[in-house]
C-alpha cells in the first residue's frame, strides 16, 4: 500500500473561488492510501513546494497527488520537488482542478464535487504508480528557424554566433520579411533598410547559417532534440549557382502586369523577378502561374537573354530532409483584409490606403520613388486623414479583439514624416486612445503634436465618402468638443489590424504547437515562459506569438535563440520513461504490436522463460526504450495484455475510470 500525500492548491482565487479546497482535502483524506492532505495558497511557490518536500520526508510518503492547474503547466515543477525530497518523480500525479474544473464551472458545489472526483482518480492512479527511471536521447546540434523576417534573422544570428548550425526556411524568394517593406522606423526615424540590410547580409554570410528561400516546411516528425523536417525547395526556375543577379531577365520579360506583392500591389512586376533591390539571395524567381513560357510553352525571353545560362525551366521542387534539435517559429504577420469595411471606402477609392501601403508610397524604392502622391491622379495630397483601430479592438466578427499595438506609433511616425517633408499638408489623426508604452514613445507622439502640428482628434471616423471631384468626405466625431465633423480629405490612411501569417495554423499543426483563437502561437506560460511553446523544443520569435514592434521582436528573437541554444548545448536529454514494456510470460510473440509501432521500437527475441515451472524458449516482444515514445498503440493491439505502458498502465487507467464512475 502506498502512503499518499494530497496537496490542494488554491491558485490564489483561481481555484479557491469556485472549489471548496478544504472540502477536497477532507474528502481526499478518506481515500485509501492517503496519509496526508493539506491545502495551500500557491502550491507551485517555493513555500508550497517545501510543504510537499517536508510532508514527503516527515510522513514517508511514497506517492503524491497535487490538485492544481494542468499537468502541462506544473507537473514538471512538482516532480522536481518530489525528487528533491528523495521520491521518484514519477510517483507524482496531478489532478487538474483549474483548467478542467474551477475555470469552467460556476457552481461551487458542483465544481467541488468534480474536484473531489478528479482527486480520487489521481489518487487511484498514484496507488498503482511505480517508480520509473528516465533514459537518455541524443540532441541534434542544429536549429531550424521558420521565417526569414527580422525575428527569424535575429534568432538565427544569435544561435549561429553561439556556434550552432542554423537553417532558415523562408517561403518568399528573399529573406527580409515585413521590415524590408518599411520606410522609417519609430521612435528614431532611422531608415528600415539601413538597419535591416546589414543583418540580412550577415545572416547570408554567416558560415553557420544556411538559408532556404522560396522554401516551405512540409513535414515535421520526431521530438525535442531530434526533429526530422522535410523542407520543400520550390522550383525557382533559376540556377542559383549560375545567376549573377544582373536583372536583365526581368527587363526582357514580356509578362509585366503582375501585381507587385512587395509594393502591396501598388505597381506591377514581371513574371521573372527579384522582389526588391536588396533581396537575399539576389537571384530572381519565375512566377510560373504568370509566366508565358509555363502557360503556353512559347516565349523563353529570359533564357535567351541570360548571359549566364541560369534559367532552368525544367527545375523541379526538391525535398530536403534534415534533422534538428530545436525549432524556432518566426512566421510573422500580415495586415487584415479590409473588404468588410465598406464604410471606409477602401475598395472604392484608390486614395484610401493602408498604413503598410503608405510605407511603400513614402519609400524611395517604392512605386512613386518616395513622392507622396495620390494613387488616383498622382497629385500631392493636401489634406490627409489617418484612421486608427481599423479592425483592432473589435468585438464584432469583422475585426480582431486585440490591440495591434504598433499602429499608434507608426501613425505618429507617418504624420510626422509627412509634416516634415510637406509642411503645407494638413494631417489629422482620429484616435480612440493613443497608446505609447515604450521607451521614448510618448515623447515621440508628443513631438508629432507639439512640434509638427499634427491634428489629433479624439473620435472615430464613421464613414469615408468618395466625392465626384475625387476628394474624400470624412465623417467623424470629435468627442471632446462633442461635435460631428465633416472634413474634406484627399487621402485617407487606415491603420488596419495585423494578424498572424495565414500559414501559421498549418505549421503549428505540423509542430503540434498550440495556437490560440486568434491564430497566435501559445506560449508555455504567459509570464514566465513567453518564448517557448508548450511543445518541447519549439520556440517562438516575433509577431507569431502576439503583436509587437521591432525592438520587442528583436528582443524576443534573442530570447528564443537563447532558449534554443540552451537546448542545443546539452549533449543528451533525458527521455520519457513512460515507455511500453512487454511481459514475457504473457507475450504471444504474434508481431501485431510491431506492426503498429510508429518508431520501430519493438523487436522480437527468443528468450528462455520459466512460466510457472514450464521452461521453454519463446519468441517475445522487446521494447527499445530509446526509440519508444510511449504512445501506447501496441498496448491495445496486444490481445493478451502483455504489452503495457509504464506510467499509463491498463490497471491505472481502469482505476481512474472506476474512480470517476464510482
Amino acid at each position, binding site marked *: 500500500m502506498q502512503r499518499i500525500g494530497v496537496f490542494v492548491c488554491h491558485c490564489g482565487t483561481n481555484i479557491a473561488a469556485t472549489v471548496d479546497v478544504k472540502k477536497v482535502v477532507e474528502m481526499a483524506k478518506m481515500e485509501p492510501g492517503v496519509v496526508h492532505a493539506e491545502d495551500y495558497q500557491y502550491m507551485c511557490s517555493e513555500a508550497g513546494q517545501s510543504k510537499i518536500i517536508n510532508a514527503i520526508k516527515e510522513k514517508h510518503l511514497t506517492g503524491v497527488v497535487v490538485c492544481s492547474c*494542468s*499537468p*502541462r*503547466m506544473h507537473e514538471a515543477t512538482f516532480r522536481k520537488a518530489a525528487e528533491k525530497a528523495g521520491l521518484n518523480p514519477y510517483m507524482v500525479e496531478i489532478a*487538474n482542478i*483549474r*483548467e*478542467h*474544473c474551477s*475555470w*469552467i*464551472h*460556476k*457552481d461551487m458545489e*458542483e*465544481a467541488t*464535487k*468534480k474536484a473531489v*472526483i*478528479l482527486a480520487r*482518480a489521481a489518487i487511484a492512479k498514484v496507488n498503482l504508480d511505480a517508480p520509473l527511471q528516465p533514459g537518455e536521447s541524443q540532441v541534434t546540434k542544429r536549429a531550424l528557424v521558420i521565417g526569414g523576417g527580422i525575428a527569424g534573422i535575429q534568432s538565427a544570428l544569435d544561435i549561429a554566433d553561439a556556434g550552432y548550425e542554423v537553417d532558415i526556411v523562408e517561403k518568399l524568394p528573399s529573406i527580409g520579411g515585413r521590415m524590408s517593406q518599411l520606410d522609417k522606423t519609430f521612435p528614431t526615424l532611422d531608415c528600415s533598410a539601413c538597419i535591416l540590410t546589414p543583418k540580412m547580409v550577415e545572416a547570408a554570410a554567416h558560415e553557420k547559417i544556411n538559408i532556404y528561400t522560396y522554401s516551405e516546411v512540409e513535414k515535421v*516528425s520526431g521530438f525535442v532534440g531530434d526533429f526530422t523536417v522535410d523542407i520543400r525547395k520550390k522550383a525557382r526556375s533559376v540556377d542559383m549557382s549560375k545567376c549573377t543577379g544582373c536583372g536583365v531577365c526581368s527587363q526582357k520579360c514580356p509578362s509585366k502586369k503582375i501585381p507587385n506583392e512587395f509594393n502591396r500591389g501598388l505597381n506591377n512586376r514581371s513574371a521573372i523577378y527579384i522582389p526588391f533591390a536588396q533581396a537575399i539571395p539576389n537571384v530572381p524567381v519565375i512566377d510560373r502561374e504568370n509566366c508565358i513560357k509555363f502557360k503556353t510553352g512559347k516565349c523563353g525571353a529570359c533564357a535567351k537573354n541570360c548571359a549566364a545560362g541560369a534559367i532552368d525551366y525544367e527545375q523541379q521542387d526538391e525535398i530536403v530532409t534534415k534533422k534538428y534539435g530545436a525549432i524556432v517559429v518566426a512566421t510573422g504577420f500580415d495586415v487584415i483584409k479590409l473588404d468588410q469595411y465598406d464604410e471606409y471606402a477602401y475598395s472604392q477609392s484608390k486614395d484610401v490606403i493602408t498604413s503598410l501601403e503608405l510605407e511603400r508610397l513614402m519609400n524611395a524604392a517604392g512605386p512613386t520613388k518616395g513622392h507622396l502622391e495620390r494613387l488616383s491622379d498622382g497629385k500631392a495630397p493636401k489634406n490627409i486623414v489617418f484612421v486608427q483601430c481599423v479592425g483592432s479592438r473589435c468585438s464584432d466578427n469583422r475585426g480582431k479583439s486585440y490591440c495591434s499595438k504598433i499602429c499608434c506609433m507608426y501613425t505618429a511616425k507617418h504624420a510626422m514624416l509627412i509634416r516634415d517633408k510637406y509642411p503645407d499638408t494638413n494631417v489629422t489623426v482620429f484616435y480612440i486612445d493613443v497608446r505609447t508604452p515604450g521607451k521614448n514613445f510618448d515623447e515621440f507622439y508628443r513631438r508629432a503634436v507639439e512640434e509638427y502640428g499634427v491634428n489629433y482628434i479624439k473620435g472615430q471616423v464613421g464613414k469615408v465618402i468618395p466625392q465626384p471631384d475625387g476628394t474624400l468626405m470624412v465623417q467623424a466625431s470629435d468627442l471632446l468638443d462633442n461635435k460631428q465633423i465633416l472634413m474634406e480629405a484627399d487621402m485617407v490612411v487606415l491603420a488596419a489590424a495585423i494578424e498572424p501569417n495565414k500559414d501559421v*495554423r498549418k505549421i*503549428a*499543426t*505540423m509542430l*503540434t*504547437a*498550440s*495556437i*490560440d*483563437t486568434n*491564430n497566435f502561437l*501559445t506560449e508555455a506560460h504567459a509570464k514566465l515562459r513567453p518564448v517557448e511553446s*508548450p*511543445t518541447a523544443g519549439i520556440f517562438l520569435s516575433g509577431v507569431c506569438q502576439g503583436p509587437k514592434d521591432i525592438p520587442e521582436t528583436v528582443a524576443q528573437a534573442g530570447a528564443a535563440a537563447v532558449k534554443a541554444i540552451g537546448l542545443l548545448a546539452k549533449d543528451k536529454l533525458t527521455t520519457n520513461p*513512460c515507455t511500453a514494456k512487454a511481459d514475457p510470460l504473457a507475450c504471444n510473440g504474434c508481431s501485431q504490436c510491431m506492426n*503498429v509501432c*510508429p*518508431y520501430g521500437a519493438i523487436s522480437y527475441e527468443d528468450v528462455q522463460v520459466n512460466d510457472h515451472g514450464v521452461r521453454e524458449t519463446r519468441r517475445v516482444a522487446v521494447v527499445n526504450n530509446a526509440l519508444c*515514445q*510511449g*504512445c*501506447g*498503440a501496441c*498496448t*491495445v*493491439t496486444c490481445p493478451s495484455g502483455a504489452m503495457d*505502458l509504464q506510467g*499509463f498502465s*491498463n490497471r491505472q*487507467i*481502469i482505476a*481512474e*475510470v*472506476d474512480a*470517476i*464512475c*464510482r
Partner: protein
Amino acid sequence: MSIEAKEEFRPKIVAFCCNWCSYAGADLAGSSRLVYPADVKIIRVPCSCRVNPMFILRAFEKGADGVILCGCHPGDCHYTTGNYYARRRMTLLFSMLDFIGVENGRTRVEWVSAAEGVKFSQTMNEFVEKIHSLGKNVRLEDIRCRN
C-alpha cells in the same frame, strides 16, 4: 422506487483525451473560460491509440452514461499514426456496441486540436445534451455497481 428516483439525471461521462492535442484543447477551453457541464471528467492518455476498448466497456460497466474519446486530428497525431489506429478500433467497437443494441449516441470520437478550446467545449456541451436525451445507461451497466 425511492423518492430520489425523481432526482435530476446527472450523467456520468468519461472523456479520454490525448495529452498532446485534446487535453491541451481542454486546457484552452479552461483558460478561455468556455463552460461545459461538470458531468464530463477527463482522463489523460498519451494518445488516442492508448484507449483500449476494455476501458470503454469498463466505464459503462461501472455506470458511465457516455464515453467520448478525443485525439489529434487525423494527420496531426503527435505520434504520427496513433489516431489512425484509434479511428479503426473505435469505428469497429462502436459498430459492435450498436449491434448489440447499445444506443450509438453514448459513444463518440472527436478530433480536437490544442487550438480548439471552443470546439472542445462545444463538443462536450453537445455530448452531454445527447446523453441527457438518451437518459441513464441501463443496458451495459453491472447492476452491482449501482449505488
